[in-house]
């Protein structure tokens, strides 16, 4: 009776003791707190943290970083974040951030103002080569913080087969809101709606400039969210949603516009350049084309998106980090990225080559000319998140009421 008990106990204890030993070994390895030296002449390996749109992007970035590592002799590793913002925040708070990372404009002000970011981009050799709108997006308090890594604009993506099946031709490509509505209606049948996009301001706000509106005044100091132009645009979006020719991707059971489009739940979607990589990976059989978004009453309009390569102020090896960014934003590397996952280069020197290489991306390139960017002032990200939340109920709400509420929030945020 006693023997099996005793031996079981012995087994438990053996596991525990060996475990505890292993643990203390691990513990001692990590427990030494890192000295927070911010000397610029650092050394040591570089860690890169990215948020990937898919395998293609991750693979391309890894290859580019490995290339640099080989030529520079500095060790470098790439990690794909599952939740980039949270991982960055924890990294900064713990004093052990990644050296180089993706950073979106709306996160810039927060991290810049608490000193987490190294404002390095002013001293880059290729500083003058970046598109001016992108340089502006990453300038805070007069300092050019980080190098834009690429850019994307929203366009209208059309499923060729469904287009033809509805009896539409090239001449029917919508150039105005009325035409957009008409074609969407023609494309709506059975389980497929004409147009679908994510219920977020990063898609819906593309209609604002088409009506002549914007979220902020041109100097970025005043909120113009509830302007009559914006009300007109949002009312148009609501109309399309309520008459059934357009639907939010979430209402179709899809995670984003690209998924609804790929699953042929919608014949058209509004998405950025990244959709090409996602479609070729997940839905390779879909034939599609991208065209410019239709013009509204006040002309064309779209949104531009970008990320930059941030460098942490706590990085142990800033010179190497900077050298890596210079290479990653170089014309050559950017063209490689463009081929791998569809983004547009952020540097002017790569533009002509990109046009030549990707004639089908003409719509996105054209969009750069007249694109707006979303507000990135401190606190604006929260307001936009609330905007997204309110857009989810657009179908049953008053567009003016939504915009009024966001206007109040945006004004409060800007005056802080």
């Amino acid at each position: 009776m006693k023997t099996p008990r005793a031996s079981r106990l012995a087994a438990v204890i053996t596991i525990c003791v060996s475990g505890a030993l292993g643990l203390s070994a691990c513990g001692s390895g990590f427990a030494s707190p890192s000295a927070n030296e911010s000397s610029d002449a650092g050394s040591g390996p570089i860690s890169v943290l990215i948020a990937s749109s898919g395998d293609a992007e991750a693979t391309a970035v890894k290859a580019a970083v490995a290339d640099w590592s080989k030529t520079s002799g500095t060790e470098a590793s790439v990690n794909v974040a599952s939740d980039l913002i949270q991982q960055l925040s924890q990294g900064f708070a713990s004093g052990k951030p990644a050296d180089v990372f993706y950073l979106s404009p709306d996160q810039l002000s927060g991290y810049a103002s608490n000193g987490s970011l190294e404002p390095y981009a002013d001293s880059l050799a290729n500083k003058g080569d970046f598109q001016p709108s992108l340089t502006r997006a990453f300038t805070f308090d007069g300092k050019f913080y980080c190098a834009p890594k690429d850019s994307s604009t929203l366009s209208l993506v059309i499923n060729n087969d469904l287009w033809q099946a509805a009896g539409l031709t090239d001449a029917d490509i919508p150039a105005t809101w009325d035409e957009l509505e008409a074609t969407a209606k023609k494309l709506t049948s059975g389980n497929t709606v004409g147009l679908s996009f994510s219920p977020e301001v990063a898609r819906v706000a593309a209609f604002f400039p088409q009506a002549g509106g914007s979220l902020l005044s041109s100097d970025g100091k005043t909120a113009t969210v509830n302007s009559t132009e914006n009300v007109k645009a949002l009312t148009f979006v609501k109309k399309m949603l309520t008459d059934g020719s357009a639907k939010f991707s979430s209402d179709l059971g899809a995670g984003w516009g690209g998924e609804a489009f790929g699953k042929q739940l919608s014949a058209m979607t509004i998405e950025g350049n990244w959709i090409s990589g996602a479609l070729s990976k997940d839905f390779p059989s879909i034939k599609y084309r991208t065209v410019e978004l239709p013009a509204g009453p006040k002309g064309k309009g779209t949104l531009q998106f970008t990320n930059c390569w941030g460098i942490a102020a706590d990085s142990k090896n800033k010179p190497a980090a900077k050298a890596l960014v210079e290479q990653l934003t170089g014309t050559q590397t950017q063209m490689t990225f463009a081929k791998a996952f569809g983004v547009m280069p952020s540097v002017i020197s790569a533009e002509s080559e990109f046009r030549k290489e990707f004639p089908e991306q003409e719509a996105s390139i054209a969009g750069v000319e007249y694109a707006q960017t979303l507000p990135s002032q401190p606190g604006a990200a929260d307001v936009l998140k609330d905007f997204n939340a309110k857009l989810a109920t657009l179908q049953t709400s008053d567009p003016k009421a939504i915009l009024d509420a966001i206007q109040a929030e945006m004004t409060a945020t800007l005056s802080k």
Partner: protein
Amino acid sequence: MATLISDTPDTTAPASPVPGKSRRQRQGKFIWLAYVVLISLAMVYIFPFLINLATSFKTEPDAASDPLSLFPATWSTLAYEKLFLNSDFPLWFGNSVVVTVLVTCGRVFFDLLAGYALARVPFRGRSVIFAGVVAVMAVPGVVLLIPKFLVINQLGLYDSYAGMIIPLMADAAGVFIMKNFFESIPASVEEQARIDGAGTFRTFWSVVLPMCMPAVMTIVILSFQGSWNELSHFIVAAQSPELTTLTKGVAQLSSGQLSAGTQYPLKLAAAAIMTVPVAIVFFIFQKKIMNSTAGALKE
């Protein structure tokens, strides 16, 4: 349904005074009804897990078009292949195993020691410590998310196995259970050992410990489940992909990335696999616990 508990067994049931309708007949009807209700309820509780398993073997279009069927139109192991051959899933699994084993060992050992001391060793400050343990039990875990991150970070344990494991290695509830258990077994055996000249630790080791395997098993099971299923602590204690556990990995897989799409078969395969270890432990130990409890009751 309420009838059933208070109904006496057939043999002792007095015949109903109502003529023509015996109590036995009425009871038979109720039992029949009870079975119907119970079986349909059990279906509600079990069916989701069967769907989970079935869907993990479906193709994505199949999962979307026929979500209710328990038999995939075409059997596909694609989800499992992707999980094991083409993702960090094995790493997450390994991390969960390491963390769970170490946390469970730590809890058993520390809770045993503390529970024994609080129940049997009359030392100064005992009541204060016990009151403290009870008070700590009342602190809701979710409230500690931010503070735990701050402390782990301040101690230099952030983003390490140590930071993930050590904070979970003692739990107030476990101490409480152990203390109660020691108080429920007679002290006479130990007294005998002590009279024979054994010291406190020796008494604890060779006399007390073998007696308390049932309670140890309870702690093992509770802490195994607790640490295998733990999510929030791992979110705040680490960030490296190499330190991701199953719960964290699957949660972040679920909240999704741009091109990831819905991928239900993949996610459900992950959910199925992470359920397997707790299910096994549950089914094995449930019997053991029942036996030991039954044994304890007979004494």
